[in-house]
């Protein structure tokens, strides 16, 4: 039963490809994977927007959208209809070709990252040997599209936003990669599916061997998530579309469906990066407890992904936006040094893999200290001179 459920998507695929002659089956199965990703993540995106609005509402003591359909469940479709029926305004002075191309590219780049994410034990669209590299190669291109949008709009706010997008990309690409390198180092592969497999197994059947449950893995996950939030331009790093400063940044001159495409790309990008985070640090599709393996792996993946995205929404509901210089400073003076130290930490972890008994505790202590002490020290210099103040009163 479990095995059937686990293989269900594959069985469906085989059943469908069975209708086609042998020579084109590979094409059909490839197309099916694309269609499945588009359908699943299209729907996921639609309900993610609703969930974000509902959760944000709850964080802000209001119910969120609840009028369109029961509990507002039809809201995404109402939004889609609205976006499609709105007039598509292109400024007269805009670079029309780029203005059109930018939203298309941003969605396309957002989508191709999904190709290497293992959604389940048997569900990986393309099992590349250099999958992690592929992911980043695909991911960096999306900021290019943001730049195109900002440039093509021929608007000063959009232009400033494009510059910010570029600066942000350059700054945060490095910590993102630095956070990933320890994982690659310890699992000895760039293939996402093998990285997930490497995180299999449980101690006593309840403690999973996920990377996040090691000191270096936790630090790596921490750095990765901060950098991922910055890469996807979400609050508190939403500088390119800083509403209170740049109106809507690169989106200022977009309307209707093109605007919706940017919106979609943001959520795709967020899902993809969080998916990678889940894959690299949270054990991918692995079940958290041994006995819970009866639940199919893809369910676990989606559950973990949703949890991570919920945390991003939580952060969005709480934090305020950094300034561009603080943003770059955070990347270069905090995340990059921490990432480098964490690399050494992971190396130590790798070398001390055969320590056992009481040495195991020593190993944990050293590893934790190696990451906590720099965190405190660098954090102190970063926030030097900033503290809540006490006030006096006039007599």
């Amino acid at each position: 039963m479990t095995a059937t459920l686990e293989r269900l998507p594959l069985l469906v695929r085989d059943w469908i490809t069975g209708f086609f002659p042998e020579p084109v089956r590979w094409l059909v199965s490839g197309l099916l994977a694309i269609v499945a990703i588009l359908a699943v993540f299209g729907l996921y995106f639609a309900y993610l927007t609703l969930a974000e609005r509902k959760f944000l509402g709850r964080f802000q003591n209001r119910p969120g959208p609840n009028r369109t359909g029961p509990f507002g469940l039809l809201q995404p479709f109402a939004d889609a209809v609205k976006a499609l029926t709105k007039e598509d305004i292109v400024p007269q002075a805009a670079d029309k070709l780029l203005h059109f191309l930018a939203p298309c590219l941003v969605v396309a780049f957002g989508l191709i990252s999904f190709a290497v994410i293992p959604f389940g034990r048997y569900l990986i669209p393309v099992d590349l040997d250099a999958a992690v590299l592929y992911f980043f190669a695909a991911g960096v291109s999306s900021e290019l599209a943001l730049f195109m949008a900002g440039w093509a709009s021929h608007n000063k706010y959009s232009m400033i936003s494009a510059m910010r997008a570029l600066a942000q990309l350059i700054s945060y690409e490095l910590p993102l990669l630095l956070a990933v390198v320890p994982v690659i180092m310890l699992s000895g592969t760039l293939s996402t599916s093998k990285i997930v497999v490497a995180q299999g197994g449980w101690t006593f059947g309840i403690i999973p061997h996920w990377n996040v449950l090691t000191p270096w893995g936790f630090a790596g996950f921490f750095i990765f998530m901060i950098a991922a939030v910055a890469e996807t331009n979400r609050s508190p790093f939403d500088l390119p579309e800083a509403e209170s400063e740049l109106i809507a940044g690169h989106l200022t001159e977009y309307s209707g469906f093109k605007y919706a495409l940017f919106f979609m790309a943001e959520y795709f990008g967020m899902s993809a990066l969080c998916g990678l985070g889940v894959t690299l640090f949270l054990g991918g599709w692995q079940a958290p407890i041994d006995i819970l393996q009866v639940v199919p792996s893809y369910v676990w993946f989606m559950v973990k992904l949703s949890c991570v995205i919920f945390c991003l929404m939580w952060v969005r509901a709480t934090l305020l936006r950094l300034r561009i210089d603080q943003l770059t400073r955070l990347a270069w003076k905090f995340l990059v040094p921490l990432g480098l130290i964490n690399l050494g930490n992971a190396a130590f972890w790798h070398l001390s893999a055969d320590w056992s008994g009481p040495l195991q505790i020593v190993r944990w202590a050293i590893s934790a200290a190696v990451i906590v002490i720099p965190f405190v020290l660098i954090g102190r210099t970063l926030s030097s001179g900033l503290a809540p103040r006490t006030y006096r009163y006039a007599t």
Partner: protein
Amino acid sequence: MLGSGIIKGLAVTAKNFVGSFHDPERLPTVEYPEKRLTLPEAYRSFPFLVFDGENAIDGLRCVACKMCENECPPQCIYIIPERDEKGRPVKKPKVFDIDLSVCMGCQICVEVCPFDSIKMDQVFEVAATNRFEGLIAHREMLAKSNTYYHQIRPTEAAEVDTRLAEEKRLAEEKAKAAAAAKAAAAAKAAAAPKPVATTAPASATAPAAAPASPAKPAVAAPSPSPSSSSSAAAPMAAAPKPPATTP
């Protein structure tokens, strides 16, 4: 340590998130068209005109004294007094318009009205399809019954009714005295070939309660639509009000 402030903030939002599911204090939204807050009695939106009795236009307390029109800060009230066929003003508004797009709901008209005839409404769902004509409220739209006034502002309306009843009582006493004193004159005047109206009221208006009312004769008798109550109360100067029948 760096991040402690952020974590505290996250804790607060988490508390509010959880609280919004069980604590009404943290989910104060009222889903408006289905559920409504009860408006406090003092709530005010736009003015309306109180009428007594059944007939909206005849029962209006308003005597077209134009006090509110003069005092209205944005000057959104427009009044034309009624005139009888001889062109003499009758104590009725012929036109009483309030431009709701101009009115700012300050209720100064209510304060200055000596006849308790203009009051603040509580209808806040005002919409019109035409922003010029549609938002001008005419006499017919503005006239609302004393019963309605009692519904929206029970305590205030009760106070007003008591006060009016008291004034009416005083006015009646005065009118009786006046009538007794002038009985002879009245009889004499009746002999003269004059139309009905002018005589008896002419004497009665003198002790009018309202100082600023343009004390002119002719209350209701010659008006084209004489209602029973007003003709009966013709000697009364302080507008035709029946005793507080509706509390």
